[in-house]
């Protein structure tokens, strides 16, 4: 392959037909570019489809089966009826933990299916638990009555969401086994048959041993990787940062630096203040993490 070969106009045509040869050559070049582009588009589309429908689901299955089932973080709230709602009390039961909100359309179509499941499987050691992300319980109580909800519902708080890895889309549903481990996570309205299949698998499992043969349902791209929050970062004085690796001096340096940097989210606050008043701000979290890494690397 001679990469420096000059591009001749004739492209292998005879000397007797220079005009026709030039035209053909130009056409051929255009044709090559066009076909190359079309094939590139086909290749990229093909890779995208292979990734979306084959590689990604396989990776998710791999991630969610065979020993990658983390313990469900603790939840201790008061339900909308005023009773204590503690996830630890459900150990030994299969739990569908549903994060939802009254203003969320997709949650509204999913909840009747959960009500049916509660009816059907409660006697076998199963419960749905609803954690509403509404600001106040008034609308949740109304909704509870309207939808004839038959399982405990509490209004959540940011900390609960963060412990479960951050709730970025509603509904988000976690399937928790009798052993207290999370076996599946679905983001977005999910076909009730998928959740029911997972519930049946978990009901059949041992209450003490991890269920290695669990197969999460894979429909409509709702199955998500289970990534939980780090309690040390959640309860940190700079929310989102695990400061346990820093010395006292490094902590002070970090706070000073973040106090001097302006957050780019538009809040007009320092990065430190923004972290403290808006835990969900990703701009301040990114900068704060970068600064902490710098301090850790410098070792000063």
């Amino acid at each position: 392959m001679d990469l420096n070969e000059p591009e001749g106009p004739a492209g292998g045509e005879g000397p007797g037909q220079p005009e026709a040869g030039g035209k053909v050559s130009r056409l051929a070049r255009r044709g090559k570019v066009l076909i190359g582009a079309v094939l590139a588009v086909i290749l990229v589309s093909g890779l995208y489809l292979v990734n979306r429908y084959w590689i990604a689901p396989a990776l998710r299955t791999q991630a969610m089966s065979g020993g990658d089932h983390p313990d469900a973080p603790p939840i201790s709230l008061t339900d909308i009826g005023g009773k204590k709602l503690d996830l630890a009390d459900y150990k030994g039961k299969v739990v569908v933990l549903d994060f939802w909100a009254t203003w969320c359309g997709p949650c509204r179509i999913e909840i009747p299916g959960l009500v049916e499941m509660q009816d059907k499987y409660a006697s076998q050691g199963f419960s749905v638990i609803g954690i509403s992300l509404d600001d106040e319980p008034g609308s949740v109580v109304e909704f509870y009555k309207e939808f004839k909800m038959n399982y405990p519902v509490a209004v959540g708080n940011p900390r609960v969401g963060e412990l479960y890895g951050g709730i970025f889309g509603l509904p988000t549903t976690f399937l928790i086994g009798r052993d207290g481990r999370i076996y599946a996570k679905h983001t977005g309205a999910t076909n009730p048959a998928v959740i029911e299949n997972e519930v049946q698998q978990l009901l059949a499992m041992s209450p003490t041993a991890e269920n290695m043969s669990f197969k999460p349902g894979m429909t409509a791209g709702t199955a998500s990787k289970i990534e939980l929050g780090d309690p040390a970062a959640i309860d940190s004085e700079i929310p989102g940062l695990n400061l346990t690796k820093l010395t006292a001096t490094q902590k002070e340096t970090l706070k000073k630096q973040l106090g001097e940097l302006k957050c780019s989210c538009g809040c007009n606050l320092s990065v430190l203040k923004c972290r403290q008043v808006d835990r969900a701000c990703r701009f301040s979290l990114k900068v704060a993490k970068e600064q902490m890494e710098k301090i850790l690397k410098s070792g000063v």
Partner: protein
Amino acid sequence: MIPVVTACWDVKFKGTMMKRPKLNMKTFSFTCIFVCLAAPVAWAQTPEQVVKAKVEMASAVARPNSVVRAAVVVEVVPGYHINDHHPSLNYLIPTEVKLEPNPQVTGQDITYPKGEPKKFAFSDALLSVYQGTVRVDVALQLERKTPPGNYEVKGQLGYQACNDHACLPPASVPLLFSFKVVRRGAPARASQ
């Protein structure tokens, strides 16, 4: 990359009586660049920020007792929607521009566009929503005796976004309306 190289190398051209073409570096480079640029787009995950908003001032200069006009240009990423200011169902959270009180602003008029009726998998009824780019018009009435100077009015765009199968928690984007007030009779030219 094998299929791309093959495409540049082995293509047969009907009716041109050509020999097998040699590797064309232009074509090769083009396709390589194209694939490299396109691949990250194809694998892009859900965007972190689905709504962006910016303030466009009709004029950067105003006089006391006049009306300052601006538009909040809202961009919703494809695949997502935000609710109409007057949502179709009472449980939906409306899109709303809110301004912080400012002693130099005695009144405000905020005009929202009409939403587009759309059908979603999670609702039997058509929902009035905003998608793509929409403009919210804002008019601020200035105080009669506003002293000359530079002013900023802060505000925020509140919204709640969903796609066809999931909703994101309510969020807001900060807004800043900046303008200069000049004396009556002074030329109303924008100065940067």
